[in-house]
């Protein structure tokens, strides 16, 4: 990676952070509201099934997470484990894809 690419990663990291800031606030509020009186699968599904608004919200949430988390891990791996270079970046792309894949599957699973 060159300085220009690393600059784009920084932009992606901060932009996704701004999106996540909003998403996490909504998510935290939902969690705190939803756990009152205990959680049941049916209750979660009643909220999410066929609700296009939730679908869009959580799809954006998952996409932002898949961008944000691997870039954060990138510096942690460099600083704490001394792992840099192409191998690390390839592993992180794989991690991003896994997050996006599992995340989208989950979103669709509670929607359909």
């Amino acid at each position, binding site marked *: *990676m060159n300085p*220009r690419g*690393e*600059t784009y990663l920084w932009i992606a990291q901060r932009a996704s952070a701004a999106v996540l800031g909003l998403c996490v606030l909504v998510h935290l509020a939902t969690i705190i509201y939803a756990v009152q009186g205990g959680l049941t699968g049916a209750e979660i599904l009643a909220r999410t099934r066929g609700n296009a608004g939730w679908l869009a919200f959580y799809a954006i949430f998952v996409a932002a997470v898949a961008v944000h988390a691997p870039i954060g891990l990138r510096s942690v791996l460099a600083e704490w484990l001394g792992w840099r270079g192409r191998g690390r970046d390839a592993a992180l792309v794989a991690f991003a894809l896994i997050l996006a894949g599992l995340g989208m599957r989950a979103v669709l699973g509670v929607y359909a």
Partner: protein
Amino acid sequence: MSATLNVSVWRGGADGAYRDYEVPRHESQTVLDVVTHIQRALDPTLAYRYACRVGMCGSCAMTVNGAPRWTCRTHVDKVYKNRKLEIAPLRNLPVIRDLVADMREFFDKWARARGQFRGARTKADDFARVAPGSEARKLVDAAIECIGCGVCYSACDVVAAIPEYLGPAALNRAWTLAKDERDTLGVDRLRAVAGDAGCHACHTHMSCTERCPKGLSPTAGISGLKRAVAGAALRGEL
């Protein structure tokens, strides 16, 4: 106030060790006074650096009780906690001997961050006039008083983790030039400070800002560079 201070001083190179000294205590004594007393009265082989003694030259920084400080302006009263005074060379730099750190890498990074002024005028031209109240000039003013002491560099955890990271002082310098309307280096400098070894490696810890003896905020300058570099990248100029 007890009559003597218990002082541990780093002796030797990287594999050296602390040695203990007893130093008479005085009113308004600085840490540099303590070190000077040890060298003049107790052990003339002690190596350390200073020049101005009044907080201008930036040569006397050391690690005092675990934190980097300018020793000529640090009073013993302020740091002599638990009857312990431990003095070591600056962290994040190689030790030459005793309290003397090798500053070469620190200043080489200023050069790598394109820390030199590059103007377009010659001495045949009139003086440049920079409006003192302009936004850019105010930003430069806030960052310009750096004495190159290396305290911020020594306090930064990213420098410790990533050896090629340019560090707060060099980036702060680049920021003052990036905001200098007479300077012509422009995007070349932004390119030099971009990415994993430059401003984008900074985690906004603020350790540099908390420690800078001149009260500067390298964190603010580095944040400005991050935005300037990102802007250049988005405009396709980088």
